[in-house]
């Protein structure tokens, strides 16, 4: 829900930095040359869609593995990053990372507040998933409010080099201006180490974020 917002806003902010940006939307069964891109985004889908995509994406396993190790900026939201682990239930996944995903009968749906050591501000988001995940990888977030990776509700997501995976769905980059800025910087600096960032104000995005954080903090204290 709302995931096209992520790439639309990223494109706009990169253009504001003076970059010429082209956006290509690829779907499964499409031929993709992953080398061609400065940034790769994978959004969320239903469980059945994920199963279909997983079979299709396996042909890119080696390439994805190389790119991740070579610091390619990648963001996976919703259930898409489950594909990068060893297994989803009994099914073999890409096996790039060392985690396992178990599907549940019940869904976890709701608002969350997370904290990340890579960001000063808290992250707000929405979870809509049906899995538990177990791993010893570097987590992307710690949970302040709402659900996490599994029944312990302590951590969420994975971060390895410039690979970011989280179950947060929807337009996470619109909702979290600092996280968006983080990606803008990573992408700009990945192209050119000495890239000079322009300071640009986005008041609507900041106020939208602060309002949501405020609402969620109020809810947490109830």
């Amino acid at each position, binding site marked *: 829900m*709302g995931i*096209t917002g992520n790439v639309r*806003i990223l494109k706009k902010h990169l253009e504001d930095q003076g970059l010429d940006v082209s956006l290509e939307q690829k779907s499964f069964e499409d031929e993709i040359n992953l080398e061609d891109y400065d940034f790769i985004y994978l959004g969320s889908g239903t469980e*059945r869609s994920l199963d279909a995509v997983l079979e299709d994406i396996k042909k890119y396993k080696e390439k994805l593995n190389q790119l991740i190790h070579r610091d390619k900026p990648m963001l996976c939201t919703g259930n898409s990053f489950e594909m990068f682990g060893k297994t989803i239930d009994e099914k073999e996944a890409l096996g790039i990372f060392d985690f396992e995903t178990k599907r549940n009968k019940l869904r976890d749906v709701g608002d969350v507040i997370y904290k990340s050591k890579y960001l000063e501000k808290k992250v707000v988001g929405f979870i809509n998933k*049906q899995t538990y995940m177990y791993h010893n990888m570097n987590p992307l977030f710690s949970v302040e409010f709402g659900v996490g990776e599994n029944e312990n509700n302590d951590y969420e997501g994975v971060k390895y080099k410039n690979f970011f995976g989280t179950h947060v769905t*929807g337009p996470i980059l619109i909702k979290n201006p600092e996280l968006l800025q983080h990606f803008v910087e990573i992408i700009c600096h990945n192209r050119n180490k000495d890239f000079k960032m322009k300071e640009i104000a986005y008041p*609507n995005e900041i106020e939208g974020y602060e309002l*949501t954080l405020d609402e969620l903090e109020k*809810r947490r204290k109830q």
Partner: protein
Amino acid sequence: MKALIILLNKILYQIGKLFHKGSSMPGKVALKIDKNILKKISLPDNIIMVTGSNGKTSTTEMICSVLRENGKTVACNTEGANQLAGVTTMVLNNTKLSGEMKKDVLLIEVDERSLKIILQYIRPKYLVVTNLYRDQLTRNGHPEFIYDEIKRPLTDDIHLVLNTDDPLSSLLGYQKKNVTYYGMEENSLSKKENTSVYHDGKYCPNCKHKMQYEYFHFNQVGAYKCPNCGHERKKPDYAVTSLNMASGELTINRKYTLQLNLRSVYNAYNTLATFAVCRLIGVKDDLVVQSLSNYSLKNDRIQVFNVGGHETMLLTSKHENSISYNQSLLYITRENIPCTVVVIVDAISRKYFTSDTSWLWDIDFELLQSENVKKVILAGKYVHDLNTRMQFAGIHDTKIVSKMDLDEMMREIKEHAEGKVFVVTCFSDRMKLINRIK
């Protein structure tokens, strides 16, 4: 004991009415005393259930009205209490102390998550599924998840009445015999491409192969075919064969022409579903046409006011439901008169907590680029999120005014609105507007 529970339900219902309480409490009490009470009631043969993401309340109301107008006695939850407790209240309320429901038809609007529970106690002869769209994901997860929940408890004896144009809900009839399909043929409003922000029909919901489309009515709704498993838009038994938005004339099966009071594609679908069900129940075709012609919905989703001299129309839409919003926006652009559009997002839900505005990015706000939309007023607590979304919808900054405060929004409408005013908002927020008008 049964008589006592029925009596208690009736008394509690009357007391509740005095205090303007919702109608689920008596049923809740009745179920507490005997959770199988519904199984002990002798119900009529003609039981119709209506479920789906959008349109179930309007469709239920219209079916009820047509049946009653044509001499049938109907027990129906028109008050919209569509979960087990509310349904129990309604059923017991319409039952004699002997445990017998002396009605020709029992008609129930059923919440799509509650269907599997209600089916444990009542088995319908007809089940209408209007559609399955992205709707209130905070409680619904996603449409395929809801599809599975509806499909699991179905048995072959239930006659399905399905919208053949929706690739997901129509799949309930895949390789089944006992099905009636309704749908809309290609018309002047249909498009060859999906122009919406997202496309939930891109892959077959059955086998996940790429789907082929001949045309779209809106979003993923249209004529589709999966070349792999054969899931396709079945030829409808009841079809809208022509639809004239300018005159509001709708023709069914090239034979029956009736007048739409509300000229929207949505209303056309609900009217068609009603036609199909009433024919199945055995009301004569010309009588159904007569009852449906110029039908004006009583559930007040569409309301008309005068605000500071501006003709104002409230189009109640559902937050967290992009297709519902799209239908309102399409209606506004198709009316094609100079207008101001007000969008209010203040509380996202009245039933549960969420601060999530992801769904704003699924709505085709790009439609507001339309020449006839002279001004856009954004209002409510989430005005910043609305504003950010509008920046990406290609609407000129000079056209947009943002007012977080709803009193200021009212002042803006009164003093600066251009042309007719259309207000698009949800049940959770519309009283904030109505109370300020009155």
